[in-house]
């Protein structure tokens, strides 16, 4: 039950694995940059929360998942979808509100799902997805399999009451759920210091008997190592586990947030000293797991995937108006006159 701080690790994975993580993080980064561009061009509307800076969190944890494990998250969800293998084309087409998007244009940035990849959304109300994550884990325990559910939420959501109701119930029932607190240090525009009474959120599980630890979320290997420990705990039937993953978002809360509540220097320092993709790149080069040429080839591959997703998302037709009347009830129920 002891809580400890994880320090940055030396590579304890193969060169190929590390290269894969680098690639997956880069895909998220470039995808999000493209989404930002399309937003600026008016092709994406509404609320759009970019994951840039936080890539190591989801990539490190996905490296610990096995087939049929589940994941559920908040509205900052693009990275999670790409990392669990959802098609960038379908994600981007949802962002542009087109019929080939994962939710057929009805959900947008915050609300996508993939049954195939066991991705359970994409939720717009802060903290409201956390009890759902416990429910997903309950279903697996009920069925008697050893799947785990990764339930992601932020430092802001950690101040929502239902999170603690969920901690209690998940511990009581020993549910196989990893609570992943992506602590990017700002609850929208309010810093953690100004919104949270004690700074070590992972310790809040102690009151419920849930072990937890703090993890360096800018290092993909640290995340993976901590994730493996958490997942092993859950799979062994020992109940939930909390990972507070310290990370940082480079962009505003959403595209409409200029992020004036922090200094430019703070962001710049994080980018220069801690960037997760640059760290992985350094490890690949210094460990001689990849050459500059190898990395250039990955860059090129990613660029092509992202450009293709953007083209697809621009070309996909807008949804048919009839679509609006589907998917509301399991069996299409006559809605009567639209009075």
């Amino acid at each position, binding site marked *: 039950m002891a809580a400890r701080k994880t320090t940055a690790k030396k590579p304890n994975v193969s060169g190929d694995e590390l290269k894969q993580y680098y690639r997956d993080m880069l895909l998220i980064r470039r995808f999000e940059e493209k989404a930002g561009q399309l937003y600026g061009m008016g092709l994406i*509307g*509404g*609320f759009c929360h970019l994951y840039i800076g936080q890539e190591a969190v989801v990539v490190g944890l996905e490296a610990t998942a096995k087939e049929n494990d589940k994941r559920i998250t908040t509205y900052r969800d693009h990275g999670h979808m790409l990392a669990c293998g959802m098609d960038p084309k379908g994600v981007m087409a*949802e962002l542009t*509100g*087109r019929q080939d998007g994962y*939710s057929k*244009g*009805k*959900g*947008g*940035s*915050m*609300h996508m799902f993939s049954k195939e990849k066991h991705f359970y959304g994409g*939720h*717009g*109300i*802060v*903290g*409201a997805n956390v009890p759902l994550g416990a429910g997903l884990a309950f279903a697996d325990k009920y069925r008697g399999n050893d799947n785990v559910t990764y339930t992601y939420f932020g430092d*802001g*959501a950690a*101040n*929502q*009451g*239902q999170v603690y109701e969920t901690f209690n119930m998940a511990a009581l029932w020993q549910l196989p759920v990893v609570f992943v607190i992506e602590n990017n240090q700002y*609850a*929208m*525009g*309010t810093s953690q210091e*100004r*919104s*949270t009474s004690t700074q070590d959120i992972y310790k809040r599980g102690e009151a419920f008997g849930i072990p937890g630890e703090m993890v360096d979320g800018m290092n993909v290997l640290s995340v993976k190592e901590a994730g493996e420990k958490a997942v092993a705990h859950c799979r062994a039937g020992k109940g939930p586990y909390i990972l507070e993953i310290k990370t940082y978002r480079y962009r505003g809360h959403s595209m409409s947030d200029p992020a*004036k*509540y922090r200094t430019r220097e703070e962001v710049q320092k994080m980018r220069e000293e801690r960037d997760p993709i640059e760290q992985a790149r350094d490890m690949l080069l210094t460990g001689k797991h990849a050459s500059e040429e190898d990395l250039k080839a990955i860059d090129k591959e990613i660029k092509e995937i992202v450009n293709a997703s953007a083209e697809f998302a621009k070309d996909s037709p*807008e*949804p048919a*108006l009839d*679509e*609006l*009347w589907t998917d*509301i009830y399991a069996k299409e129920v006559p*809605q009567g006159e*639209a*009075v």
Partner: protein
Amino acid sequence: MSMTSYLEAGRRAVMEEMQRDERVWALGEDLGRGGVFGQYKGLQEMFGDERIADTPISEACIMGAAVGAAMTGTRPVVEMRFSDFALCAVDELVNQAAKARFMFGGQMRVPMVVREPIGMWRSSAAQHSQSLEAWYAHIPGLVVVAPATPADNLGLLKTAIRNEDPVVYMEHKNLWALEGEVPEGEHLVPLGKAEVAREGVDLTIVTWSAMRHPCLKAAEDLSAEGIGVEVIDLRTLWPWDREAVLASVGKTGRLLVVQEAVSVAGFGAEIAASVAEALHYRLRAPVRRLGAPRIPVAYAPPLEDQARVTDKAITDAVRGMVVPQTVA
């Protein structure tokens, strides 16, 4: 009079009431940086961080704390950012705030204002676009306000803050930038008093919040065809101005209710039923409602538009009621 935006009018209302009454304070997420829409800009600098209090993202706790603080005699203004998010705090509002006065035999009262913006703007999808005013109009103990103009946002919010009962104050997100004439100096608008926004003799439209504007546009267009439409902006849904509505429909003999919310079980149903009960034999056409179909608001613009009542839909509906033979 001066031109002021709807957003600035709301900011001015809070500022003036905080200057006037030191029991007034505000709490919510990101208020220190001006609120998510800028509706508290500069107020923390002016009043300090105890009176303009930043909170964690904890809606249930924000609402519950405000109820407690109101019970002890302060006058909190609660910022919920979106009516969709306020659903996290509905227990505190409906089971605590609304019922405290009654349950405690009148010994307790809860003078608080809950600001929870409603409505569609663009591509905000199903969890950031709802108009939930009917939910609260259903609850005894709550006052429900939905201003449509900058002047009303100033005058109604000031009145709401001075009110002795909990007020659910629903600004419309798509109106923040709307400019309009606002009186200089003290401006109060009474609760429960509708405004006849335009006079006419052939048909009465009853509406509120952002729908006031397409209704006025439709009325203007129809006047060119010789159809006189009277537009009544309810301004407050509870209490609602029954007298003004019955007087108008008594005169015109026709009622169309226009709302942005889902029409089914919306507040328009209450207006329609009340008019039918009181004036059935004087009606010259069946009462009609226009509102959103009963579907979640979609993200993609063409789908989202299906949930919008347009001025064209309003003119079509009015024509169909006034000149039935023109209906295809």
